[in-house]
């Protein structure tokens, strides 16, 4: 069952400690061990992949902005376990883990981060813009809220064709304050669209807290003006996320109507790799990085206690994950840079006369 322990409302000071307690999940004992180990391996993979990404970024192998899923591993794996392969996914810019979990080859995700030719978007997107038609991950988007109307449109297309796929639209807590949130929720409910809006609440939009930015800080309630049901789940608990997300996704599929799922967890690092998060107190930093809030450590501990994970298996998984991440980094390192001659290949899908192919210093009229 979903643990819906609520983030406290009001300011951090007014509400005392920000520490969120967590109920023991009873789910582990009812699950197949191989499935649990699979979740564990996938969560650990995201952890190590993102650590490698962070390292490559500080070595200047990766450019631009770079936002990591560290601390969200249980949420990402739980959410993606709730989708069918044919369901669609839209996310914000914190998208590496989602891309991998939706089925993209980690080699090509890493190559995209490196800006190489074999990247999922051929080096045109970078960290914020993972995309793959095949696995139906229809984009990480860099503009906060930009993906919401698009996701509603994808659901509209599914509905137009009487399909039974569902669209999942992920975003951060800060997104619930943009205009696109309100317009999209209204449209999604009016038009009976099969879509689940997933709000990842890590309590902080860059450096501004949810309490300081949202007049209704219980984010799962923010669909009430549109009669959209919402639920909150402990995003540190992979089974709780999977179960709650599955329930809402299947209801969206069956009832052809939108839902909101708020998953809360901690952002272990700054907003992006380069952010030292000076706006956080030491206490807040300690809390975000503590073992008791670390979804990978929590799950590892549970599996060990339940006798599903022994030292040998843990070491084997750790070694295979390490090797696979190293392979992704090697692949990215060895992938060629995109050919500059391809610069004008992706401006338009339908070629038309007089498209500009002028390089910066070229004359407008070349004789």
């Amino acid at each position: 069952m979903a643990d819906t322990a609520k983030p406290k409302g009001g300011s951090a000071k007014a509400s005392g400690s920000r520490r969120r307690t967590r109920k023991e999940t009873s789910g582990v004992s009812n699950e197949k061990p191989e499935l649990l180990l699979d979740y564990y391996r996938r969560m650990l993979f995201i952890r190590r992949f993102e650590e490698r990404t962070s390292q490559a970024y500080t070595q200047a192998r990766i450019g631009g902005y770079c936002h990591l899923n560290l601390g969200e591993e249980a949420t990402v794996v739980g959410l993606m376990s709730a989708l069918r392969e044919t369901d669609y996914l839209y996310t914000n810019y914190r998208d590496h883990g989602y891309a991998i979990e939706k089925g993209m080859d980690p080699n090509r995700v890493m190559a995209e981060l490196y800006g190489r030719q074999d990247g999922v978007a051929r080096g045109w997107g970078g960290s914020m813009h993972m995309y793959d038609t095949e696995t139906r991950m229809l984009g990480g988007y860099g503009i906060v809220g930009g993906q919401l109307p698009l996701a509603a449109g994808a659901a509209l297309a599914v509905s137009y064709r009487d399909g039974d796929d569902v669209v999942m639209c992920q975003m951060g807590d800060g997104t619930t304050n943009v205009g696109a949130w309100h317009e999209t929720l209204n449209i999604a409910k009016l038009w009976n669209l099969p879509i689940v809006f997933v709000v990842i609440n890590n309590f902080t939009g860059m450096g501004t807290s949810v309490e300081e930015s949202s007049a209704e800080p219980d984010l799962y309630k923010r669909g009430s003006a549109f009669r959209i049901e919402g639920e909150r789940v402990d995003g540190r608990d992979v089974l709780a996320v999977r179960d709650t997300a599955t329930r809402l996704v299947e209801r969206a599929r069956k009832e052809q109507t939108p839902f909101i799922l708020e998953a809360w967890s901690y952002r272990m690092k700054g907003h992006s790799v380069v952010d030292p998060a000076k706006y956080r107190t030491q206490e807040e930093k300690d809390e975000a990085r503590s073992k008791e809030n670390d979804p990978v450590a929590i799950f590892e501990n549970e599996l060990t206690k339940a006798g599903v994970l022994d030292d040998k298996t843990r070491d084997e998984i750790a070694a295979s994950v390490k090797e696979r991440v190293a392979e992704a980094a090697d692949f990215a390192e060895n992938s060629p840079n995109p050919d500059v001659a391809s610069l004008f290949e992706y401006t338009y899908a339908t070629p038309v006369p007089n498209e500009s192919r002028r390089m910066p210093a070229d004359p407008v009229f070349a004789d």
Partner: protein
Amino acid sequence: MSVITYRQALRDTLRAEMVRDENVYVIGEEIGLFEGSYKITEGLLKEFGPKRVRDTPIAEEGFVGAAVGSAMLGLRPVVELMTINFSLLAIDQIINHAAKIYGMFGGQTSVPMVIRTPGGGGQQLGATHSQNIELFYSFIPGLKVMAPSTPAEASSMLRAAVRDDDPVLFLENLGLYNSKGEVPDDYAEPENDNVATIGRAGVAREGSDITLIGYSRMASVATQVAEKLAEEDISVEVVDLRSLRPLDRQTFVDSVKKTGSAVICEDDWLTYGIGAEIAASIQEGAFDYLDAPVRRVAMAEVPMPYAKPLETAALPGVESISTAIKETLSAVGKRVG
């Protein structure tokens, strides 16, 4: 040939495209039951039903973005934005999303959609409803921007826009909806290959003394100017840009090479306007052929006033364009009638 209005050319062509391809649907405010603020979607709800004629709430960012998302899955939405002024509420979805999705994701998914929207002025609609801000979209690689000036162009260009796989901003004009012109008899047939080429300008009227360049309503005004000046024995060549992006520079540069001088007329503001790009292109492409500086006739740089005499004074028209042409020809030393 038949003579019909610009409005009817748009309406009948849109209907024909909906008959031809069931992925084509129309979406916008008041387009169904109300049949469109300017009646371009008249009768479509009745014929095609609410799935293919989708009325929206007043939420431009939401429904334009939803159209983009549906296009990513292969539908071919034709969005109606009541006027181009309201496109500002959807500009994130148009510029940051529709225009970027094909390139930003490495050419994996195209966005086959049309945004139809009228610009205009001269209807006493005041400052927020009289703007010509197509420049914003013409500036953006990834978008295509078309601006028909006659019923025939409206038909063949709308057909091209719907069949193209990229996002097309299709600029109409309040002042043109009731204008009439000849169209081929079969213009409203679904199986019709009278499809314009996006990215091509055209010479609307040949002449030898001076080149007059315009688009949308101003191309139509330019033709009136040419007709009037012909009575004074001044031969004006009119170039109708038709496509603002891609921009067909060669057509107007070739014309200027022939005539030796140019006047640009535009409904938008002069500073940084479309005409600035045209003038810059002329100096680069026909520098040695110019006998006089390129002149621009554009709207006065004020928010559009409501009062009729003020509004009329702010807008370019036959008189102001004729004056600029005569002054330019004077500077060249050509006889002015």
